[in-house]
């Protein structure tokens, strides 16, 4: 398992459209991918679970990837989050 803390920098946070795109990216990987925010965990492959967390700009989240492609998944999703706009 690999994990990393990431700052959400885009102005609308993990709001519907960016969150939906991120969930789509997470689904490309075989590994289990979990996001942790304020002590709550959510499956990053479920948009509803992610939206329940209410993640905004300037929040830190932790991404956990566990599975055969965990390294690639973490690197890809981190870059995707850092490149998010809107």
């Amino acid at each position: 398992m690999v994990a990393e803390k990431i700052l959400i920098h885009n102005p609308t946070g993990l709001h519907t459209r960016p969150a939906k795109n991120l969930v789509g990216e997470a689904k490309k990987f075989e590994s289990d991918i979990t996001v942790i925010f304020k002590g709550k965990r959510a499956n990053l492959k479920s948009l509803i679970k992610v939206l329940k967390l209410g993640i905004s700009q300037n929040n830190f989240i932790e991404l956990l990837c566990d599975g055969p492609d965990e390294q690639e998944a973490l690197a890809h999703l981190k870059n995707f989050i850092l490149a998010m706009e809107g």
Partner: protein
Amino acid sequence: MGFKDYIISESAVICNMEAQTWEEAVLQGGQLLVDKGKAKPEYLTNIVKKCKENGPYIVIAPGIAMPHARPEEGAMGLGYGIVTLKNPVLFGDPDNDPIKLLIYLVAPDAKDHNEVAVSQIADLCDNEDTIQLLLKAESASEIIQILKGEDR
């Protein structure tokens, strides 16, 4: 006021609305927000325009869409609305089509929008039993009773 309390106290519900297309559904159902002074009419046309430009970003789960735009796109107050469709419509989202339940959201503040409103709606959508009951309801008052009866 929270999402469910608002829906219950304002009776912000339309049951079995008839619409031929997703645009028609979004615009017609969204009158719930406009009639109560929570959104300008352009809030609804902005949602349609953004769906056409960016894809159906408002579709959040199988059968469920959450029509909303940004605060600066015509929001006037915090408001919500629940609309069920008599006949489902297609949004062009193969993972989640057809859509039969619309949960509207308008908020004048981005932080409230994201941290409070969206997460409360997502909570409801995560309860499959309640969603199934809402989809089967045959009147607005039945929908309100279902929300009143749901454990928080």
